[in-house]
């Protein structure tokens, strides 16, 4: 479990450092790079488009990751990928935060502060197309 917390903490610190350099943070989608919103909508509405726009094997963590899993080497692949539907803030009780790392990279966090759970996804633009490149499923999180 300590190892897992370390991985999550280390990743969060990495994000924080990068954010200090070049992030534009907004809780609304107003500042998102051009073309990202259309991609995001299609990613959730069109399953085929979704599996075409995931970069496998993808780093991240499964839902409810715990010490019984070898999470350090965990990768999302077509074997374990579960199709994502769009989570609305109201129906999920989660609060969405966008971190715009650059015009080519966007980080999305969904947090339910009451329950202390959250998920995280990172999207990157490569060859003029957006892709999902990182996904941490719903897990307990610690405030920093």
């Amino acid at each position, binding site marked *: 479990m300590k190892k897992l917390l370390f991985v999550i903490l280390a990743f969060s610190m990495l994000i924080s450092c990068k954010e200090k350099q070049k992030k534009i943070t907004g809780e609304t989608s107003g500042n998102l790079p051009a073309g990202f919103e259309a991609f995001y909508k299609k990613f959730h509405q069109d399953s*085929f488009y979704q*599996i075409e726009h995931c970069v496998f094997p993808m780093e991240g963590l499964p839902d409810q990751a715990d010490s019984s899993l070898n999470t350090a080497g965990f990768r999302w692949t077509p074997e*374990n990928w*579960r*199709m994502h539907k769009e989570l609305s803030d109201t129906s999920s009780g989660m609060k969405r935060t966008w971190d715009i790392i650059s015009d080519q990279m966007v980080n999305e966090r969904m947090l339910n502060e009451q329950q202390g759970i959250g998920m995280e996804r990172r999207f990157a633009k490569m060859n003029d197309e957006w892709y999902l490149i990182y996904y941490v499923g719903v897990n307990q999180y610690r405030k920093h």
Partner: protein
Amino acid sequence: MIQKAIHAHTILAWSELEEVPGCNKDDEAFVREKNIHHPLKQKQFYAGRRLLRSLVGAEAVINYDQYGGPIVANKRNAEVSLSHSANMVACAYSDIAIGIDIQQADEKFERVKFRFMSSDELSESEKTNRADYVQFCWSAKEAMFKAFRKGNINFRQQLMPNIPLDELDLDEFESTGHLIIGNKLIAMRLNYYKHDSYTIVSASFDASKY
């Protein structure tokens, strides 16, 4: 427009975009609200909603559930599904859980098949060497996924359409597919159709039994 009644209370329909008449102010407002600008997307959107109303009734108020699937807000026990591909639109109307998918033939299915087909299905695909098998496999899984509605499904491991290979040359056929949720096996009736270069598959099941 082609219509098929697959059992007493389930009707499927598909049509070319131009064939579907009528217009609705709610649909126009929705297109503005959701910023649907692309002309083909607009055409597909309008055609889908019109085709759905032609089955459900002109008074149908079409909305979307929390998973993004269409619902008829002013009619009880009305399960609906919509799909479009290129110049065609398909819809399904039932009193049990229903999903429909239409796809125009495209080499993209072959290119991405390793991402959605199980190892058994991939073996069958190699043996048969038929593009329509791969396309039907995608459509069947997508229809099952839509019928289940809730998402969070692995296409390779949890959706097993069981496509009857010896019936692939027929214009229409059916099978019983299975969705695996934990230790539960949900049986779905799958109906397969060919229309020119398009495949259409519907998946239906009685959700009250699970």
